[in-house]
């Protein structure tokens, strides 16, 4: 039981580390590129901005959920 808990914890820490690297790349690339465009959209086309904002947050949720699930499955599979 303890061994299994330690394995799960180790898999989670590795997952967190990989996820952090991916998120930093995401901050640097995607948000940097999107920032200016979103700022102009927000000041000039509010309705389009509202729709784009909703699509972005929903899209990110689905994408990151898939990434973390895959990472977790992959690490769990390797630690067995």
């Amino acid at each position, binding site marked *: 039981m303890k061994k299994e808990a330690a394995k799960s914890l180790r898999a989670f820490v590795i997952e967190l580390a990989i996820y952090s690297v991916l998120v930093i790349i995401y901050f640097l690339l995607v948000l940097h590129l999107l920032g200016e465009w979103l700022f102009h959209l927000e000041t000039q086309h509010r309705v389009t901005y509202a729709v784009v904002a909703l699509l972005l947050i929903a899209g990110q949720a689905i994408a*990151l*959920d898939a990434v*973390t699930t895959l990472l977790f499955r992959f690490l769990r599979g390797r630690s067995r």
Partner: protein
Amino acid sequence: MFFPISNTHISPIYLAVVGFLIGILGGFFGVGGSFLAGPALRLMGVDWNYAVGTDLAHIVGKSIVAARQHRTLGNVDLKLGLIMALGTIGGAEAGAQLIQALKRAGNVNMVVSVVAIIVYSSIALFMLWESGKTLRSAKGRLQRGLLKGAQSKKDHSAFGPVTQMIQRMKIWPMVSLPTSGIREISLWIILLVAFVGGFFGGFLGGGAGYIRMPSMVYVLGIPTHLAVGTDLFEIVISASYGTLTHAIKGNVDILIALVMHTGAVIGAQIGVVATQYFAGPKIRLAFVPLPLIGAAIVIYTLMTGHKL
């Protein structure tokens, strides 16, 4: 990191950590967590209107992740969630209208603060009494240990007889909720519960999960795990509506929400997995501090005059 839309400098690590903590709460209790996210953004100098709108956008993302995870565990009643979304949106509009009327009368802050303190404290005291009584009862004792899977979802509440009485009320049309194990309940009762939750959300701010989740358990008789999952699904719909309206009014900095959400994804998954290890009454008991924190924030605001 500079966020041009709200014109603020905030550390992305701070945002990710805040998102992570709120994600755990959201995944475990089925709440949006706006009572923490709003003040956390305000602390970093984000204007109040941006804090409210941005928080709603972040709630959409976090709730999608948590609701998807709960769905894989069989904790989401889609039919109930869709019906409740209708009542919530109607209630939120009514709450917002009342705020406007109170603004015109000039006493909005005092009225909202007093109502919030009474509502939050009452919920906390009631849940403390009920979950404590249930855990002390014979059936509750059986649920005390660490349970996994479907066994942990078997729910028992000391308020059960009142809930059964509500379920027996024959006000046409009646609907059945097989996923939640409810053979028949009046559609109007579901809509009323959602309307009240939405009303307090519009009136007091935030998603009002601290009202809706307990009322789903105590009034509708939904098992706690399903109430958490279904509430999150319902929050996706109502918070999306709120995000759209706030973004059109210029109250959403989506870049802040996207960064916060990166932490919330991991937090929400931890919260969802944790529900599998606790029986319903234990989740309800652990829920008690949440509305109390909300009440403490309102009391602090009243006493100091600073809005967190």
